[in-house]
């Protein structure tokens, strides 16, 4: 048995979060994790071969432990038994010199069971574990209780230790009390970040990434301004790729919460994972990483971030369709919810004189005599006509409806396209609807 003791963060977990959540991150490295007093104890002998030896595991733990900062050297200790590791950790926190002989020279106050009796033992001239162990056992048991001796035996490794191992819940769902009544959605963010950290530990231990999660808050009031309120209001987040890194989720959550309006002050906050997926294990290359590799966020994270701030309809990807009607040649889809099915192969060139700007819907043009006008100037038709007659097969109305005026087949388009020019409008793409005879502006060449 070989043990690591890690100091827990000084601030207690928010009410509602189980204390065991502080140890979830370590379950990734060993299944034997327990909480004892102010420390987290990890039994690592069983798994250290898996991680490449004791030194490698130590380095990994130091890199992955949450909140390990510059003073991390005082945040952990290791020893052959759990109580020795804990005692060494306490000694390091006190700043005392490391003991010459382990465990004989450890001070008495580093063992929890001996703390109440430390003063009395000191008066006896007994300052270290070794000195106490040298005393007659029967007398010590009579005077200080058998529990002291049992603890000392456990610390020495002579007696078995019974630890309450931390178990990971099958589903991640945490509900916490907010430190203060949250009036605005941004006030939820601080607590939500702590929940996300707990989620990260849970995900790491399960080797999963989260695909969808739900943040819910409980309204403090039953009714507000005479309106009945539901007890809970929720916000769902989805990502395209499984996420274990909380920076992206925190950004998304901040954007979404910034846009969210609370119906009433909130008193409780809950975080649930709706969907998780196994995290793909990235294999490391043999050669060191390319220093010229472009840093920056991946495309999918950018799209999700932009969509969270600006709305899903504001970030769009085009898809081309093989059609003769210009308004049907392209459709714009929200980038976060691409339409089902693989993207079709781009069709061949459309040909024709398509302008780079499309006016949607087509803008009706005024007529002067028989000539269409734009910006008050008559247009000269310079190229054309190009006849487009299509869409008779379509029953559902399309954007073309306003142009064709709702005939028998609403998608039907019968048009003559011209390239026109005037000094005020520049080069434009216009068409004459052959059904109604009206002129429309449909594109701009610039």
């Amino acid at each position, binding site marked *: 048995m070989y043990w690591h003791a890690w100091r827990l963060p000084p601030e207690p977990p928010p009410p509602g979060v189980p204390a065991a959540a502080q140890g979830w991150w370590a379950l990734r490295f060993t299944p034997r994790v327990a909480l004892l007093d102010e420390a987290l104890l990890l039994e690592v002998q069983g798994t250290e071969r898996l991680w490449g030896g004791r030194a490698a595991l130590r380095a990994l733990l130091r890199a992955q432990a949450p909140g390990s900062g510059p003073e991390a050297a005082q945040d952990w200790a290791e020893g052959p038994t759990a109580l020795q590791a804990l005692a060494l950790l306490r000694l390091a926190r006190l700043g005392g010199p490391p003991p010459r002989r382990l465990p004989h020279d450890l001070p008495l106050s580093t063992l929890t069971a001996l703390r109440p009796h430390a003063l009395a033992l000191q008066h006896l001239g007994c300052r270290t574990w070794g000195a106490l162990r040298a005393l007659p056992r029967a007398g010590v048991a009579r005077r200080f209780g058998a529990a002291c001796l049992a603890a000392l035996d456990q610390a020495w490794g002579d007696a078995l230790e019974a630890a309450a191992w931390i178990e990971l819940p099958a589903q991640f769902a945490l509900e916490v009390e907010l430190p203060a009544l949250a009036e605005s959605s941004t006030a939820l963010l601080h607590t939500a970040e702590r929940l996300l950290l707990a989620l990260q530990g849970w995900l790491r231990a399960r080797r999963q990434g989260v695909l969808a999660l739900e943040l819910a808050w409980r309204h403090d009031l039953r009714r507000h301004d005479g309106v009945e309120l539901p007890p809970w209001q929720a916000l769902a987040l989805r990502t395209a790729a499984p996420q274990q890194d909380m920076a992206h989720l925190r950004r998304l959550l901040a954007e979404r919460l910034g846009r969210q309006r609370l119906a009433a002050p909130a008193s409780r906050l809950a975080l649930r994972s709706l969907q998780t997926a196994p995290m793909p294990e990235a294999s490391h290359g043999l050669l060191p990483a390319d220093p010229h590799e472009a840093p920056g966020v991946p495309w999918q994270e950018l799209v999700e971030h932009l969509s969270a701030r600006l709305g899903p309809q*504001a*970030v769009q990807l085009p898809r*081309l369709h093989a059609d003769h009607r210009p308004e049907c040649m392209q459709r714009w889809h929200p*980038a976060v919810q691409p339409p089902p099915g693989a993207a079709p192969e781009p069709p061949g060139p459309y040909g024709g004189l*398509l302008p780079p700007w*499309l006016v949607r819907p087509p803008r009706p043009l005024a007529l002067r005599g028989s000539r269409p006008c734009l910006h008050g100037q008559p247009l000269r038709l310079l190229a054309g006509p190009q006849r487009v007659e299509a869409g008779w097969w379509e029953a559902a109305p399309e954007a073309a409806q306003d142009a064709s005026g709702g005939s028998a087949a609403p998608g039907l388009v019968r048009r003559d396209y011209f390239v026109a020019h005037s000094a005020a409008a*520049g*080069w434009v793409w216009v068409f004459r609807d052959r059904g109604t005879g009206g002129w429309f502006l449909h594109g701009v060449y*610039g």
Partner: protein
Amino acid sequence: MAHSPALPLSLPPGVWHGRAWAAAQQRVQPTGHAALDAELPGGGWPCGALSELLLPPHAACEWTLLLPALACALQGGTGRAVLVAPPQEPFAAALHDAGVAVQRLCRIQPPAHDSADSAAVWACEQALRCRDVCAVLAWLPQARAAGLRRLQLAAAQRQALLWVCRPAAQAAQASPAPLRLALRHQGEQLQVQVLKRRGPPLAAPLLLPARSPALAAALQAQARRRGRMQAEARATEDVRHVLARLAPAP
């Protein structure tokens, strides 16, 4: 000093003689217009710098200038291009015909009431931080100089292409862009005035074809056809006159 006050031969990076070109320190993307390439430092659009295009109102002539470079930037690889706040709907089919890989375009439309284009500038900045984005084309008519400076810094970090289209009225204002071009229609041609570049000032504005080759060819063909038809009409008119003269008087 005994020596003539000549400048040292080796200048620190970023400093160049007024009449010479700045040493090309960055990658460039050829513009696809040989005349314009010859007048830009390094011979193309600078990667990792803000290029500002100043457009007169209703001109919308940016595509003519940018399409070849955009098509080239999206060719091969997996880079994506982002269009931020285009004033109208870009016609993806026309861009496809011009050789642009349309499936790797993305349109970002910030909310309509966007004071000083702050949302659009933010979106540009985010896009420039993305490792898959190789070009950003933004229309920022109201952006302030501070926002543009942020964009310039973001572009410099990622070595991406960044074009910003602004109204011609902004030409008098200072701008952090190392390259500023003012565009204007002049008859059948597009007049490009280089307002600012890392090099000597440009003597005379450049003239580029304003229309795509396909459209120019179609217009020419139509004009030729019309001319022929008019000539034929004139000829038949003449023949009719001659016949009328030949006819015996009643």
